[in-house]
């Protein structure tokens, strides 16, 4: 497993809100544990603001199965966390710059066709009309324009991944 594959795994984890991956395969052993809102909250005082119902995660989230199939009792349902302590805050430090968000729901593609080079790579300079990706929705390939000027700092979504409305796609350093 090379560095690129590990990076992709991490990206998939982030996109799919996976907390932990333990993989053992053909002599390779890897364990990746994400910083989660829950672990970030440890040591917090209970005297803070009262808990609220908040959907903590931006992005398409899959809830853990409601109950363990058998064996030990399932964990207590995930505690609801105050808005400020959601994943967004935890991820903030790595998000310097402006985000280009998805204007629609669909599937994210970095290139115009399979095998073709991506529209943009990290480091690329973009203008307002630069096509930066495609979001496929209802069999239509929608070319998404940057609508801002700057330099791509990070691609936030893996090629071929589903995206929801308003989901950050690229991180851009304005120039």
């Amino acid at each position, binding site marked *: 497993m090379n560095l690129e594959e590990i990076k992709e795994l991490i990206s998939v984890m982030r996109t799919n809100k996976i907390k932990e991956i333990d993989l053992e395969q053909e002599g390779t052993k890897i364990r990746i544990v994400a910083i989660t809102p829950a672990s970030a909250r440890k040591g917090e005082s209970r005297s803070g603001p009262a808990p609220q119902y908040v*959907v903590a995660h931006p992005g398409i989230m899959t809830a853990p199965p409601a109950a363990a199939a058998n064996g030990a009792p399932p964990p207590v349902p995930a505690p609801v966390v105050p808005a400020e302590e959601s994943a967004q805050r935890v991820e903030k430090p790595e998000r310097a710059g402006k985000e280009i968000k998805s204007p629609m*729901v669909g599937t994210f593609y970095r290139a115009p066709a399979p095998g073709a080079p991506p529209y943009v790579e990290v480091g690329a300079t973009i203008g307002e009309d630069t096509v930066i990706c495609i979001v496929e929705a209802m069999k239509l390939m929608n070319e998404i324009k940057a609508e801002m000027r700057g330099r791509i700092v990070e691609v936030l979504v893996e090629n071929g991944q589903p995206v929801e*409305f308003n989901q950050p796609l690229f991180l851009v350093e304005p120039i």
Partner: protein
Amino acid sequence: MARTDKAPKEKPRGEVDSPPPREEYFRKILIANRGEVALRVIRACRELGIQTVAVYSTADVDSLHVRFADQHVCIGGPASAESYLNIPNIISAAEITEADAIHPGYGFLAENPSFSHICEECRIQFIGPPPDIIAKMGDKAVAKHTMSAAGVPVVPGSDGIVKDPAEAEAIANRIGYPVIIKAVAGGGGRGMRVATNDRTLRTGIVTAQAEASVAFGNDGVYIEKFLVNPKHVEIQVLGDNHGHVIHLGERDCSIQRRHQKLIEETPCPVMTPGLRKKMGGAAVDACRAAGYVGAGTVEFLLDRDMHFYFMEMNTRIQVEHPVTEVVTNTDIVKEQIRVAAGYPLSLTQDEVRFEGHAIECRINAEDHERGFIPCPGTLTTYHPPGGPGVRVDSHAYRECVISPHYDSLIAKLIVRGHNRTEAIERMKRALDEYIIEGVKTTIPFHLWVMENPVFRQGDFGTNFIDEHFGK
């Protein structure tokens, strides 16, 4: 404690009624709605072992339907047109989550034939009737014609859309004033006006056409005889793809303000078994003739002489479906899902039993002292009632926001009692226990209704609020 049981399984305690293998309906259902009805569908899915996808607008990120679904997808901004009416984003959400069916709830896209059609094209099962049935029964003028052809009495009026004031005037003079002007695409009480003479009719037609054009994108209006203080009585029907259509009795929804229901109950207090059989039979016959599939509601007006007239049909789950569920011990949403998956209904007409009396009060964020104007805001306290015979269907919780973008429904409070008196007393008790702070609610209004002698006596019509409230 000493454990001496060496062979616990050797002597079974008798026949254990092992359940039949579970039927496979769908793997994953996307709910194209919000609020309490989205939660209602999620509850049914969870109990059936079906995964759920919630879609939500950016205003609803903290909603319970988002929290309780297995997956959730943001589909647009707060305005309904950007999100809950945004067909491409909803279909895309179903595709990226690999949902194999969509439940539309009520309102929004529930009675939109082209949405049902698009689902069909995308091979996503729409949980509701096929597009042609929605089109036929959802257009009020066409539905009236269909019903009339099936022998169901309809309110006298125009045969479909009236073109102009002159045509309307001729019809009105034939059937007699007062008449009511309705938009063919209207609903929920919007687009209606009453005319008592030629002059108000002429101006009414023109205004109604203009209004309907703006509100519904369709300026078609029709007129019918305006009945004086009738009861609004509707029949719940269920149909499947195997030719079965049954009804689950009636609901009396006469307590309305501006044609919007506030209290619903079943049985209707003035109903007789004979009349129920006649109305139920008429609804079932018409739906069978139309090839109706899924849950639907046939709305009638019942006049003082116990004559009933078809008014319109709703081709979807109704807000007030729980009162029917609690007296018939059925789960209408589960039946919708069964039927959409191609299974037959789980019960026949002969198996439908009515037990007790149920009432639903809609707890809205509204100020009943100022004409029921909506009062959106944040709930600072929320404590629902409990105990025997009480059901609460609600997406509310402490600190939740009742958003100005959507309707003002906070909760549906449903009670069941042995008889109407017990149901009314239970409703009072439950309303007294319901603690909501932060917004004004209709709870005090409902408490007033429950004590009103005309309501308690049962012989009230759709004018009840105009006639008795605040007087």
